[in-house]
């Protein structure tokens, strides 16, 4: 057991313990051991601090299950601070225990021992003679990468099996950064085809190898290759075509946008609106009802001569049940008028009966131009007998004409209302000036809502037509028209849903030009 090895080691330990003023060299360290072909191997070490003195390094080893301490057979073949074990000194599948001893004049220092089995430290040299060529037809090129095994490996005897790996990188990538390496396994073959390289690209190729399950070698020196750019010509054609089509497209879109109305008209023809013969919308806008209605009723209705300054208004009150009252009142107030009224009614109809006023002439007779009156325009929202509206109204002229229709049987209320109306009228000071035109009397309108009823009759029958009535709203509203050129219209019952609305619709015209107002709404 205690052979030469141990003695030598003991001696060395003793030597290291001898005190010395100048220190022994620093401890060396084994950096690595490598076998490139599984037949030889080399170990390298780095020395410790030399302390300024010449230091020698020696390598000692012993093999597994053997106590013999052997020294490195070759210190020079692999360079400085190395030990090369040739084939004769290399045994695979055996553990080597290696130690470096650094010694100078003052002493020796041992390194840490390293146990190594050659099987574990196999790392070949990189492959050699790497060549890359671009092969293939113009439109489908590919790389052909070829290399050779490192010269010192013995593959012919089957002792080792080399496996290879190739990596490729695009040098001039567009992202202004180095491209990524693409790694391809090549197995045992010594060539590789890489397909679909980027035209116009510059590539660098490297290859490495390993023995069986050993360590990978270093990457071989890079080989560079440039791929011809065959797409330039095709690209220009494509670009030209794309540009032209884009231009045409934009042009078309622009034209469509500019002429969108025309296109819209063409594609989606507008639905024609209803047309009334002779109706001119422009006239309506111009607020000239005379022309408007002229246009409308040019055929059937005689046009009345224009009486520009005359505003004929008609207050229709139903006095049938109390003809006396009316009779009394009327003559009280305006007896002469009534007389005239009566007088004028020379037609076969009864005195108090005006069944049909077909001509404006008659109306004119009735409503003389002396009178100028305005019909009450009530702002009453609610025809509530209790409330007073308090609306001021101008009442020019004090004349009041009543048309009596004894035929109709009005409801008592109506006549009453009519009477009431009259009464109202009575209350108010009504006076007519000499010409009957200039005087203005304020008439506080109270319950004008009670004015009325004759409208109903007209609605029912058509026997009595008030030419000036342009419309009837519900039961309490009577719209009268300006006299002059207004044609006689049959009254129609209008929708009573929203009288206010309609009134309002007509109101603007009323408000604007009182003297020229066409429609007046009489509340009954």
């Amino acid at each position, binding site marked *: 057991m205690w052979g030469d090895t141990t003695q030598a080691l003991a001696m060395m330990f003793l030597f290291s313990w001898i005190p010395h003023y100048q220190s022994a060299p620093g401890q060396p360290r084994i950096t690595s051991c490598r076998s490139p072909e599984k037949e030889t191997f080399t170990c390298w070490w780095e020395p410790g601090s030399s302390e300024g003195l010449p230091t020698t390094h020696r390598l000692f080893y012993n093999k597994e299950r053997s106590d013999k301490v052997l020294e490195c057979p070759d210190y020079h073949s692999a360079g400085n601070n190395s030990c090369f074990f040739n084939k004769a000194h290399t045994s695979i*599948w055996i553990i080597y225990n290696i130690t470096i001893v650094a010694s100078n004049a003052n002493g020796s220092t041992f390194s840490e021992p390293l146990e190594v089995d050659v099987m574990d430290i196999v790392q070949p040299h990189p492959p050699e003679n790497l060549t890359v060529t671009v092969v293939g037809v113009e439109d489908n090129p590919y790389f052909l990468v070829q290399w050779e095994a490192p010269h010192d490996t013995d593959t012919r005897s089957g002792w080792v099996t080399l496996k290879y790996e190739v990596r490729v990188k695009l040098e001039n990538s567009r992202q202004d950064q180095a491209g990524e390496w693409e790694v391809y396994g090549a197995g045992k073959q010594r060539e590789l085809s890489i397909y679909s390289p980027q035209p116009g690209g510059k590539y660098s190729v490297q290859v490495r190898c390993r023995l069986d399950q050993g360590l990978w070698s270093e990457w071989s020196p890079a080989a560079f290759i440039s791929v011809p750019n065959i797409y330039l010509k095709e690209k220009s054609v494509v670009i030209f075509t794309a540009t032209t089509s884009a231009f045409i497209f934009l042009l078309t879109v622009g034209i469509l946008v500019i002429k969108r109305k025309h296109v819209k008209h063409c594609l989606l023809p507008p639905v024609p609106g209803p047309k009334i013969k002779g109706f001119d919308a422009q006239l309506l806008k111009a607020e000239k009802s005379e022309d408007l209605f002229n246009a409308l009723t040019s055929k059937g209705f005689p046009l009345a001569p224009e009486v520009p300054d005359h505003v004929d208004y008609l207050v229709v009150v139903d006095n049938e049940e109390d003809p006396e009252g009316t009779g009394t009142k009327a003559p009280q107030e305006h007896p002469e008028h009534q007389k005239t009224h009566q007088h004028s009614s020379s037609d076969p109809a009864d005195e108090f009966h005006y069944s049909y006023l077909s001509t404006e002439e008659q109306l004119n007779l009735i409503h003389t131009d002396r009178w100028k009156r305005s019909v009450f325009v009530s702002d009453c929202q609610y025809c509530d007998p209790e409330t007073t509206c308090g609306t001021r109204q101008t009442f020019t002229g004090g004349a009041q004409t009543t048309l009596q229709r004894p035929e109709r049987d009005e409801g008592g209320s109506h006549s009453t209302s009519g009477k009431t109306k009259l009464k109202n009228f009575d209350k108010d000071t009504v006076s007519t000036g000499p010409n009957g035109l200039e005087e203005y009397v304020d008439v506080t309108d109270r319950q004008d809502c009670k004015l009325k009823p004759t409208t109903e009759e007209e609605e029912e029958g058509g026997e009595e037509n008030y030419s000036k009535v342009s419309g009837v709203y519900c039961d309490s509203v009577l719209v009268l028209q300006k006299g002059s050129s207004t044609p006689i219209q049959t009254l129609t019952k209008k929708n009573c849903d929203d009288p206010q609305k309609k009134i309002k619709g007509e109101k603007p015209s009323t408000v604007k030009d009182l003297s020229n107002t066409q429609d007046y709404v009489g509340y009954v």
Partner: protein
Amino acid sequence: MSRNRTQAMLFVALLCLDLHARVGSAPICPHGHTGCHILSLADLFDRVIQHSARMHGLSSDLHSEFEQYFLPSKNHISRVYRKCHTSNILTPNGKENAQKLAREELTEVIMKLLMAWRDPLSQLHQSMAHQQDFNSFSSNKALEMSDMVHELRKGVEKVTEKMQLLGMISNSVSGLSSPEALLPASESGEALSDYELLYCFRRDSDKVQNYLKILKCRIVPEHGC
């Protein structure tokens, strides 16, 4: 009656198919056609070599896992004095030594190695399966390794038979049928630990792989050597 006959015929047909399958995918050549047989021998060798490479890879993985998790210190002093149970088997420790060895001897060494590991590997798998430290993945690897040794041994047996049939080696290869029941024990008589077993097997599987390659390139050199 006809039913029995059809059944019998089917049975015979199945047997024939089975026999064909056993013969293998090698082209059926009349006996004596050397070209036909050599090709199949090369294929057999390739398969066996692949098998041994895979086995060695597995053993390396297991060993490194073991080393990583259970033995953090690299400088294990007892490593130097470790002795595998197969150390008694004389194996060439280098390429020249292996090339100097005769084909028969080389074949014999391979067979001895494979046979020596049949039992220890199953023991290893069992001990690994029982221990809580190993995950199921490692345990499965050990089992796979154990099966592989078994398969590889059979494969090498077939190759040997083929070689003997072809007259490439003499019939003096012995020790194939009688396994040496070597219990894995060190010199001092203690049983080797799991780690030591793994280390030893890793080494031996590498030996087997290398020896097979050498053998192949010596016997059928024209195919991939």
